């Protein structure tokens, strides 16, 4: 009961900024809204929609196919490929686009400065969402699929389309939605590649025209559309019941295929890996080592330490509050908390700078209020204890990134039968022990996965970090983006490479934990 109250209190604090943003819909229309409607709104809408659909489609192809092949078949280098396929997640889409632009600038035949280029640049580095989630689903059902197909004597293709895909649908749809949301919130990539989307439009209105109200109203309109899509997606998921994951999980021997087919599978899996990771990574590495002296500067190591600490703290807090929300929702499900969680999970589609301003506003007022009191009554200046510290930054991270952890923990809890909790309760076990000894171990995979994704996302995050960080605190992403946006991609390569390295280490560690321990690699 009281856990619920705590969750409710915390989540209301979190969603207030979002509601403040949405409330702009009730203001009179901004000065420039008619102008925007007349001239550019259609372009923004068309481009954003195309971008989201394109990214959804390509990540589905890349993530779905690689997840299926690596979980069902044996082919050369499979173990290595399985881990490496997640690595593109460590490369920020923006850096990816700039790197490719650098590589391709001498070949005019391939032009990525368009909508299709943006779709590719984003898809190649976000498909791991689909891959990670789909792989989990395929592994759970792999044995049954295999046995069924053996019995029925169906072809592999039919088995994939008729059995595996429908069973893995909820996981794949979640992955695809996350990818599409990331694409919608993207600013750097589309701006660099010259595609006018809702996100660039919001900035143009805010910064270029100085019209905050119109910008907020555009953001509201945009979020409403996103929210409708999210609701549709969640409703399709609700109809599908999860298979019991804890029962009968025996070691699955992957299907062996003839050499030439194995080779084809290897090539299929290498495509996203090559374009999403190897090419940009080695290009950056080349620039960092041979064209600049970035590694010789001490500063880079300090910044790396900053980034790592920030990402660790941020992701621990995010996973913890997500656990709090989802656990209290399990113990005592309420419609209100459920609705609030839905609102909070919209954060992933809100462009970073919009969140930055949305959280700065209330905390600045709060600080102002506190300082007034302390100055008037105690003659003491307490300073900006909320808006001037890491508090506001971590808060903003929570709003932006808890989507992933809330959703994967909700799914994780959904797979643990209530009878487990009830059995333990009937034994007289405290809720704390149930959480510690049963739920947390059983949630191992979603906990680690969400920690990993949030960690890497914070490492890559730019707009929130740059505006909300305290004085004299620089991070790898700020460094890399500043240099890259000032057309100094070679100087930016050092920091970019460190982001990738910092992402790779936890990815490998956690992959070993998730898959290695359970013999699933």
């Amino acid at each position, binding site marked *: 009961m009281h856990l619920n109250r705590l969750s409710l209190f915390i989540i209301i604090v979190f969603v207030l900024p979002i509601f403040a943003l949405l409330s702009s819909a009730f203001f009179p229309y901004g000065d420039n809204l008619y102008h925007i409607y007349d001239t550019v709104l259609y372009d923004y809408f068309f481009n954003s929609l195309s971008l989201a659909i394109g990214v959804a489609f390509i990540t589905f192809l890349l993530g779905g196919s690689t997840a299926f092949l690596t979980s069902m078949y044996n082919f050369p280098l499979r173990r290595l490929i399985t881990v490496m396929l997640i690595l593109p997640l460590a490369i920020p889409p923006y850096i990816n686009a700039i790197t490719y632009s650098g590589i391709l600038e001498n070949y005019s035949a391939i032009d990525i400065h368009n909508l299709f280029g943006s779709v590719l640049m984003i898809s190649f580095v976000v498909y791991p969402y689909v891959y990670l989630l789909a792989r989990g689903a395929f592994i759970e059902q792999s044995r049954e699929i295999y046995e069924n197909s053996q019995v029925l004597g169906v072809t592999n293709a039919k088995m994939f389309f008729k059995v595996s895909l429908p069973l893995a649908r909820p996981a794949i749809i979640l992955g695809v939605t996350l990818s599409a949301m990331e694409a919608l919130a993207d600013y750097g990539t589309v701006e660099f590649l010259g595609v006018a989307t809702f996100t660039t439009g919001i900035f143009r209105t805010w910064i270029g025209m100085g019209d905050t109200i119109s910008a907020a109203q555009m953001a509201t309109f945009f979020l409403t559309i996103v929210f409708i899509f999210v609701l549709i997606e969640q409703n399709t998921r609700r109809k599908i019941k999860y298979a*019991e994951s*804890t*029962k*009968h*999980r*025996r070691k699955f021997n992957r299907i062996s295929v003839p050499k030439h087919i194995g080779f084809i599978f290897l090539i299929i899996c290498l495509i996203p890996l090559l374009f999403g990771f190897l090419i940009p990574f080695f290009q950056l590495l080349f620039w960092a080592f041979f064209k600049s002296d970035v590694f010789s500067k001490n500063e880079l190591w300090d910044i790396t330490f900053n980034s790592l600490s920030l990402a660790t703290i941020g992701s621990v807090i995010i996973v913890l509050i997500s656990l709090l929300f989802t656990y209290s929702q399990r113990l005592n499900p309420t419609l209100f908390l459920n609705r609030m969680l839905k609102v909070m999970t919209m954060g992933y589609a809100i462009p970073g700078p919009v969140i930055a301003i949305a959280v700065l506003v209330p905390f600045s007022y709060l600080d102002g209020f506190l300082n007034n009191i302390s100055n008037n009554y105690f003659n003491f200046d307490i300073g900006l204890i909320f808006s001037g510290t890491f508090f506001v930054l971590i808060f903003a991270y929570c709003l932006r990134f808890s989507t992933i952890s809330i959703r994967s923990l909700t799914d994780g809890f959904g797979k643990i*039968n209530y*009878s*487990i909790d*009830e*059995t*333990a*309760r*009937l*034994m*007289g*076990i*405290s809720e704390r022990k149930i959480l510690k*000894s*049963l739920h947390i*171990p*059983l949630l191992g995979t979603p906990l680690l996965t969400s920690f990993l994704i949030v960690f890497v996302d914070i490492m890559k995050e730019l707009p929130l970090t740059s505006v909300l960080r305290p004085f004299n605190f620089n991070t790898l992403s700020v460094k890399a983006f500043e240099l890259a946006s000032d057309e100094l991609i070679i100087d930016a390569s050092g920091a970019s490479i460190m982001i990738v390295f910092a992402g790779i280490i936890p990815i490998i560690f956690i992959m070993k934990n998730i898959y290695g321990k359970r013999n699933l690699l």
Partner: protein
Amino acid sequence: MNKRLVISDLAMAYSRDGKGFSLKNINFDLGDSEIGCFLGPSGCGKTSLLRAVAGLEPISEGSILSNGLCISTASSVLPASKRKIAMVFQDYALFPNLTIEKNIVFGLDKLTKEEKFNKVESLLSLVNMEKYRNSYPHELSGGEQQRVALIRALATSPDILLLDEPFSSLDVEIKESLIKDVKELLKNFSIASIIVTHDQFEAFSIADKIAVINNGEILQTGTAYEIYHEPSTKFVADFVGLGTFLPAKLEGKDTLNTPLGLIKNFSRQNFKESDDLEILIRPDDIIHDDTSKMKAVVVDKHFRGAEFLYELKYKQKFPLLCYALSHHDHKLGESIGIEVDCEHCVVFKK
């Protein structure tokens, strides 16, 4: 006899999944080492009732007493964790991340290491599963998982043990022997227990006392024999066993006129002569006898190993069921001889 559990005038508003059915006027009690059973079709509310006993669902009227202590009323509910009631769920709810040993000792925090070890040892030996001590649940078969769930529930020495559809996910072949084992185990522990099931054979073979539930109400409580032979309503009669209903009329003081003939010495109960009545004829009321003059036509037949179950038509319109030893192999459409041996006359108003 000392009552371990007393449920009086209980009513429940809604089930957890919100489907909206309710339980009402529930009265049930259980003696010290009695095995009770809630029998009913799926969706009748029997599982909700069990969950209310466990303290997992609130009740809206009445009370539940355990050992004379009130554990549930509409206004106050003793938490499930303090009831000393254990439950075996339909899916067994073994903790998949813990070994069998850890599963069993999970609720035994107060014991020392050595006590725990011995407890596990003795419980596992009861079900002949000593070698699985360090296995994980997913490595066991369904029957083995069920036995572990059972001894885990018994490990905490509860006052009452609840079993929700314990045999429903088991193969038919092993079910019978398992039911016997479980009954023996429960009697050994002399623990009061309640089993929820939709299968009357399970109920008959394990329970001392059966409550038949339909649409949220207990229709009848009694022993297997009583339920089968003296069903209080047509639903109970139909649900607990095979049989057909034939029209009947009361004639005179104590005679019942049925298509199969007159039945004398019938206690007329509250029936009037003008009432249209129905008499229940179970397959065991009809005896097959090739020499009998009374003939019925074979409409269908089901092979049951040692015997056939024949579906018959008497006088072209009255359906009957009849068992016959399986060497009496008659063709469809053939007329065969039958005799009536109706010991318990179960009659309902139409």
